[in-house]
Each structure stands twice: as structure tokens, then as C-alpha cells.
């Protein structure tokens, strides 16, 4: 019993399954773990690993099939009301009332949690300052940006200083600056109030910020311990490889095929290699190899890589597109107004054939608006825009035949089967007869979709949904591919597979335009544009952008450091 008092949460033999359509999904399979008091514990795992189920069990919102979960010394199932009186819980989509203002939301949760009226003003002030929401007290929650909503959700969950805080993927879809702010709030709570925090995330780089992690995969606990314990076995197995003779894409493809290589990943100007043993990859002329420190993600990939099949041919369309001369996408002083508000102003850049171009920015920076104008989903208010040599204002239909588009929600017809989705998008692009069936066979094979061809696409796992969405976007062999946050929520392995395909497409001559929140992914791009408040802050290769952020206390800035630095310096000026 003494033992359990030191534990914020302890679970033993916990199982939970759900009925989804005709399938029975085992979300958690007999797992046992403990969460210590007064630290941040990370619940790490890819999508559908069972993170949310675990969180809801701890909050007493679900009843386990078997096993028990003790929260703050109480059984979360039998004494759920008491447990709920001591914890703070922030669900994945926090239940903010969007038609209530910031202050009204706080009032509501203060009422519900029984905060005495006398204590409220000081508490609100502290929370609002902490979340830097003070200037927005009277704004409707629905009009806040994604990051601000998350911070307000956190503030609501913290209204009564809980001893245990459960945060279910608080950083999904949040830009790096807001993410850092969220984390600093969490740290302050732990430091100042000795709060215990259980936080789930699919971002592996966030695991490094936790004191302890629980690694969850397909309903089982793979490993628990401090983040170092996962990195430790990889010391001496990580290398940065550069080549003066090959392009980084070819180098990556080359290295991935070498024996003993678990993972090869483009990272800025070099390729990051994870080896099976502590020896560098076989050297080749013109190749320089440097040892690197392991990261959490390396450990994760090394642990799971062999459990997945890797696919992807070197040639996606079975042919290379003729290399385009000159720019494929051109923006000249592009502007878009909504009433008096400039969502995008004075944006100019161009992208050449076969380039992977990234568009980054905080929420509300104007990148989605720019992106939508590029795809022809939104009319520009001013300026010129040419895609595939066509002015979108006039020959939209002609240009659209040359582009592929994949949106962040993997927007497919969720009640149509995989085959029906592919068939529909094929014919929407005018494919029929032999060409149509050839492309259909190609998509089935290339993306290994044959096994699920009759599955309704809404029932697919996120990884498969993403594959299907990409397959649909590629049915008509587009010259240009638009990807809007193509990997959000997908686990690192599926992300690697995805980027491998994108790289192959690019080396085949397809131009790729991508927006992303993952700073990691920014490193895969040839060039980047970072946007803020509707205009471009900086544009260049990843190395150039990182170099711009070098300072005394940051001799080797990461992409995220560079991004945060840029945004902050802009806010100051």
C-alpha cells in the first residue's frame, strides 16, 4: 500500500477492446505500468497504439475489460467521481466551447471544479499569463488559433491545481512556437507545484523532454524507463554521411541498400544512418562519415524497423518525366484579402522541376491560404500565379489535370472501399479503359493495397489511409504534387516510408510542394520558405536557414531552433 502512495498511477493487467464496425479492436492487451509522482511521464506511441484509451481509463471514463488502474491511490473505475475531483484531464480534442469567450470557458470550468469565487481573479491571472492569453480574454474560443486553443484547454484543465495532470496529445497540430510554450507551462507546474504529469504524444522528439517514458505499440508496452535507456544501446551506431559525388537523394537510396544499415534518412545536408552494429557503413570514394549522438527516434526505429516491411520502387511511374526547364510554380506578388484582413501579402517565389519545396509557418501564418491558391481552391485577390505554365485564373481545369493534391485529413470517401476510391479518382482525372486499369494495378501494387482493396477506407489505420490518399493523388501521374501536412499523426516508420516515395518521385522529375509542422521533415526539403503573418520571413535551403540562426548559446541550431528564433525575432521587432 505504501508503494502505491508514491505512484501517481499504477496499472496492472489492463485490457480494453472496442467494437468498430465488424471488427473487434483490442486497444490494450494486458498492460501493466506505473507512473511516478512529481515528474513528467511521456506516453509515446504511434497512432492507434492505445494512448487515448489508456488516458480515458485513467480518467475513469472507460471501464476496463480486465485488470485495474489505480490513480492517486483510488480505483479509477469504482471511485471515478473522486478520482475526477483530483485530476486535471485534457482530451485530445479539448472540449472548449467555441461559442464561449476565453474568460467564460474559464468561468465554466472554475464552477465545475468548485473553485471559490474569491480565489478566481488571482488564479485566472496566473493561468492567463502563463498561457499568454491575457490580451484575448474576451475573444471567442472558436476564433483562437490552434496553439492558443490548446493553451486555453490546458488552462481549463489546470483551474484547480490538480495533483495529477493527464494530457492526451496536447501538441498535435500545434506549431513549434506554441509547442515550446506548452512544454514550458508543463515544466513549471512540475517544478513549482510538484504536479505529476502523464502526457501522450506521437512526436518522438518530445519524448526526450520527458523524465520517463512508456513506449506503447499496438496495445502493448514495449519499454519503460528514462529516454536515455532507449538511446543508450545506439551509442556509436549513428553516423552522418556526406558525399561530394552523389546527390543526397541518391546517396540515401544507396546507403539504405547497404548491409547492416537499419535506417538512412536525409537530414539537412547529410544522410543520417543507423547501423545494426557499432561500425560505420562501408566506405566509398567521395564519402565522408562522421559519428553522431543517438536520438530517441533512432532507438524507436531500431526497435520497430524489422517489424515492418519496407517497399517502394525506385521508379514510381515506370518512367522519368522530362526535366522541365525553368520554374514549374511561379508566384509573383501574390495577395489574398478576407475583408480588410490580408491573409497573404506580397508573396513571391518560384519552384523548379523536380524540386521538393517546403512551406513552413505557425498556425495562421498564411501558408494554408497560399497553398489553397496554388491548388486553385481559392482565387488570389492580387498578383500572378502560374502552375505548370498555366495561369490558374483562366485554364484551371487544364492545370488541375497536371497536379496531384493530398490534404492533411487524408480526405477520402470514408464509406467507399479502397478500390472504389481509387477508381473514382482515376475516372475523375479522365482515366479509363486500359490506362485506367493499368494505373489501378499499379496503385494496388506500389502501395501494397491489394490486401485491403475491399475494406471501407474509413476503417483503415492512419498509415494505410495516408498511403491510399497518396495513391489517389498519383493515379493520373501528375507533374506537380501538393502535400498539405501529409504526415500529421502518422508514426515515424510510416513517415519514413512516405518520404522515401516522395524522394523517388522527386528524382523522377516530379515537383513536390509540401507544408508541414514537423521540423524534422523540413530537413528533407531542397528549399524552404518560412511564413509569418502572411508574408515570407526567409527562403533558402535547410542549411542556409539553420546557419542564419547560429548564435553564441546555439552553436548548432536545429531546424526547430531556427524556426522559433526567426518567429521570436520577428515578434520583437
Amino acid at each position, binding site marked *: 500500500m505504501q508503494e502505491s502512495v508514491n505512484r501517481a498511477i499504477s496499472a496492472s493487467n489492463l485490457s480494453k477492446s472496442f467494437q468498430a464496425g465488424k471488427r473487434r479492436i483490442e486497444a490494450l492487451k494486458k498492460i501493466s505500468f506505473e507512473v511516478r509522482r512529481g515528474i513528467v511521464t511521456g506516453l509515446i506511441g504511434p497512432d492507434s497504439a492505445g494512448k487515448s484509451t489508456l488516458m480515458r481509463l485513467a480518467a475513469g471514463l472507460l471501464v476496463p475489460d480486465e485488470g485495474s488502474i489505480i490513480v492517486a491511490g483510488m480505483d479509477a473505475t469504482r471511485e471515478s467521481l473522486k478520482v475526477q475531483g483530483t485530476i486535471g484531464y485534457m482530451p485530445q480534442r479539448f*472540449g472548449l466551447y467555441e461559442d464561449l469567450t476565453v474568460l467564460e470557458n474559464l*468561468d465554466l470550468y472554475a464552477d465545475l471544479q468548485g473553485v471559490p469565487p474569491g480565489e478566481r481573479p488571482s488564479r485566472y491571472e496566473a493561468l492567463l499569463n502563463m498561457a499568454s492569453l491575457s490580451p484575448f480574454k474576451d475573444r471567442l474560443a472558436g476564433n483562437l488559433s490552434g496553439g492558443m486553443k490548446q493553451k486555453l484547454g490546458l488552462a481549463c484543465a489546470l483551474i484547480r491545481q490538480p495533483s495529477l495532470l493527464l494530457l492526451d496529445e496536447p501538441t498535435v497540430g500545434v506549431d513549434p512556437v506554441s509547442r515550446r510554450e506548452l512544454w514550458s507551462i508543463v515544466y513549471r507546474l512540475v517544478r513549482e507545484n510538484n504536479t505529476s504529469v502523464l502526457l501522450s504524444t506521437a512526436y518522438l522528439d518530445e519524448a526526450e523532454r520527458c523524465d520517463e517514458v512508456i513506449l506503447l505499440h499496438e496495445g502493448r508496452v514495449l519499454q519503460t524507463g528514462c529516454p536515455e535507456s532507449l538511446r543508450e544501446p545506439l551509442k556509436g551506431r549513428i553516423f552522418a554521411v556526406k558525399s561530394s559525388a552523389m546527390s543526397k537523394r541518391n546517396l540515401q537510396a544507396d546507403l539504405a541498400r547497404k548491409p547492416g544499415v537499419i535506417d538512412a534518412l536525409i537530414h539537412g545536408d547529410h544522410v543520417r544512418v543507423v547501423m545494426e552494429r557499432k561500425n560505420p557503413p562501408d566506405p566509398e570514394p567521395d564519402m565522408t562519415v562522421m559519428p553522431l549522438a543517438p536520438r530517441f527516434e533512432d532507438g524507436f526505429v531500431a526497435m520497430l524497423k524489422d517489424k515492418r516491411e519496407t517497399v517502394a520502387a525506385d521508379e514510381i511511374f515506370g518512367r522519368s518525366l522530362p526535366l522541365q526547364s525553368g520554374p514549374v510554380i511561379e508566384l509573383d506578388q501574390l495577395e489574398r484579402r478576407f475583408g480588410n484582413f490580408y491573409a497573404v501579402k506580397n508573396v513571391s517565389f518560384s519552384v523548379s522541376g523536380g524540386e521538393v519545396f517546403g512551406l513552413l509557418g505557425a498556425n495562421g501564418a498564411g501558408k494554408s491560404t497560399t497553398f489553397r491558391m496554388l491548388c486553385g481552391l481559392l482565387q488570389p485577390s492580387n498578383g500572378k500565379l502560374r502552375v505548370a505554365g498555366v495561369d490558374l485564373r483562366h485554364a484551371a481545369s487544364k492545370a488541375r489535370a497536371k497536379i496531384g493534391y493530398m490534404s492533411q485529413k487524408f480526405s477520402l470517401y470514408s464509406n467507399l472501399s479502397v478500390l472504389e476510391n481509387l477508381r473514382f479518382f482515376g475516372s475523375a482525372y479522365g482515366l479509363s479503359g486500359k490506362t485506367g486499369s493499368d494505373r489501378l494495378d499499379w496503385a494496388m501494387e506500389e502501395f501494397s493495397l491489394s490486401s485491403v482493396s475491399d475494406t471501407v477506407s474509413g476503417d483503415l489505420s492512419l498509415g494505410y489511409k495516408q498511403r491510399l490518399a497518396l495513391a489517389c493523388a498519383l493515379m493520373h501521374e501528375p507533374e506537380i504534387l501538393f502535400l498539405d501536412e501529409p504526415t500529421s499523426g502518422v508514426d515515424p516508420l510510416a513517415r519514413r516510408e512516405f518520404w522515401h516515395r516522395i524522394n523517388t518521385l522527386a528524382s523522377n522529375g516530379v515537383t513536390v510542394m509540401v507544408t508541414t509542422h514537423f521540423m524534422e521533415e523540413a530537413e528533407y526539403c531542397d528549399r524552404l520558405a518560412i511564413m509569418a503573418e502572411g508574408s515570407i520571413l526567409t527562403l533558402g535551403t535547410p542549411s542556409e536557414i539553420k546557419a542564419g540562426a547560429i548564435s553564441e548559446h546555439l552553436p548548432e541550431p536545429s531546424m526547430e531552433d531556427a524556426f522559433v528564433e526567426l518567429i521570436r525575432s520577428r515578434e520583437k521587432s
Partner: protein
Amino acid sequence: MSMRLNGLIRKEFIQIIRDPSSIAIAFLMPLVLLMLFGYGVSLDSEHIPLGIVTESNSADASDFTASFHASRYFKTSHFSDTRGAVDAMMSGSISAVIVLRQDFSKQLRQPGGSPVQLLLNGVDENTARIISGYVDGSLQSWLEHASAARGLPLELPVKVEQRIWFNSELRSRNFLVPGLIAVIMTLIGALLTALVMAREWERGTMEALLVTPLSMSEVILGKLIPYFLLGMGGLALSVAMALWLFHVPLRGSLWVLFACSALFLITALGMGLLISSVAKNQFIAGQVAIIGTFLPAFILSGFIFDIDSMPGIVRLITHVIAARYYVAILQTVFLVGDEWSVILPNAGALVLLAAVFLGLTWKNTRKRLE
């Protein structure tokens, strides 16, 4: 009242004020429905187009048809043959035809009397029956007129004296408007409540509510109280329109009307909450609410159609339709008065149904996500 409940109710009110669709259902819908029914719908047939075929012109014939010209119920037009009149009836320009034969005058003086043919367009059978009644009325008035003129006892053996109580002018507005209040209260109580509850599930706000120390009774009361008040607001609006815009008499007392309405509203809210405890998305909740509450309130409540005339099974079903009891109370309180022999049993049935619906809701709602 606890601080938690207070907070929930305040939140609900702010949402109602900010959400145009709640306002639309609570206030715009009653307005539109009352206007439509008050002004648009009427079962009072006047100026019915009636075709008269007179095969021969005679003084007797014009004397006879004069009683139809004079009637405010008919708008007459003359045809020279039956064929043309029937065509006009088929195309809808007249609703009935009266045929006076060639030998009308001659037969009139025969012992058997002269047969007059009345051809009704039976498609709209309700109107057809009404026309038949009006024709009988016109005939009776012609007989009286004729007997006075000729000094002969030309009367029907049995004469019917009608006495329509409570609504002697037979204004259909007087029963449509009170009945409509039941439909409106159902809309606010059941449809709106089911939708807003489903919205909480859909938007994920319910999950955030459930992890607070709220008890389930507080969650239920937190919805019941605001929408109860909103419903009473809708009622006040409807009653005001009924009294001052449509001049429906209120012969009973206002407090009985409001007390019984409150009772019905609680029943309707119980239905709404029950629906939402089963259907957790707005689409399904809306469908179920329309089919399960709105439609029955219209058709099966005795609001327009007489319940006794429905087939046995349907009559049985009407016993679980709360609107049935409320419509009975409404029509009585408005047109008759505080007639306790009607109000008490019907109010008793409403109490019973409210207990059943709220009890089922209570049983169905647990503080869990499953």
C-alpha cells in the same frame, strides 16, 4: 443550487444566445409555424366554386338557384350542359356541380318532387362532405322561403338544429393555434434538446465535462433547466400571438395553461434527453426527434385528425404520444375553461410519461464514454 449546476446553466444560456440555430428553433420556428397556420391554413370553406347546370331556363329554376347565389359558402357559375361542367370539375376550377334537369319545373309539381343531382369532386373528400352539408343547408333555406311565399308546409319531416359548443362560428384558427402550441413545445423540448446534447458529444465537450466532478444528475439538470426556461419563453410568445394576433379566446385560466405546459415541456425534454442518450450525433438525433416526436405531435395527437377514427393499432400507439394529452388540455383550456374532468386525467398521463422518459434517461446515461 450548487456552483457546478449554476456554471452549467450559465454556459448553456450564453450558448443559446450566441448560436443562431438555437434561436431559430426556439423563436423563429414558432413564429413561422404560427403565421403559416394562423394565416395560411384554414378549414373554413367559403366561396366554394359551384357549377350549376340548368338544362332549361324557367322561373322555378332561377328561384331555386337563387338560394345558392345568396349563400356566402358558394361562388356559382352557370353551365349549359353537364359535359362542360364535369370538365371544369376535373381541371379543378369548380368543386361540385348541381344539375337541374329539363323537366325540373314539371316534376316540381308532381307528388314525388323533382330530383336535383349534386355531383361532388370526391378527391378532396373532406371538402366534398362540407359541400354536401352546405347544399343541404341551402335547400332547407329555399324550402322555408318557398313555404312562406306559397303558404304551403314545404318542410322536411325532420329538421336538424345544430349547436356547436365552444366554437360556434367554427373558426378553424381556434383549434389550430392552440394545437400548434403542442407542436412548438415538442420542437423546443425534444428536437432542440436532442440536438444540443448530441452536439456536446460530437464536439468532444462532453468528454471534458465528464472528467469534472459533475454528477450525472447535474449534467441532466444542467440541460433541463435552461431549455425548460427557453421553452416557457416560446410558450409565452405563442400564447401572446394566439390571444392578441389571432384572437383565440382563452376561457380557462392562464396559470392552468402554464402549469400544464410546464408539465408537458418536462415530458418533451425527457424525450429529447432520452433520444440523445441513444443517438450521439446530431444527424441521427435530428432524424429520430422528427420521426419520434415532431411527426406524432402533428398527426397522432388529435391536433387535426380525430383519434377515435384511427385504426385500432394506431389508437393504441397514440396512448404513448405525450402531445395527445397536451392537445386535449390546450383545446379545453382555451375554448372551454378550467374543465378539471379533462385536465386532471390528461395531466396525470403527462406526469406518468415524464417519469418514464426521465427514468429511462437516468438509467441510460452513465458517466462513461461507452
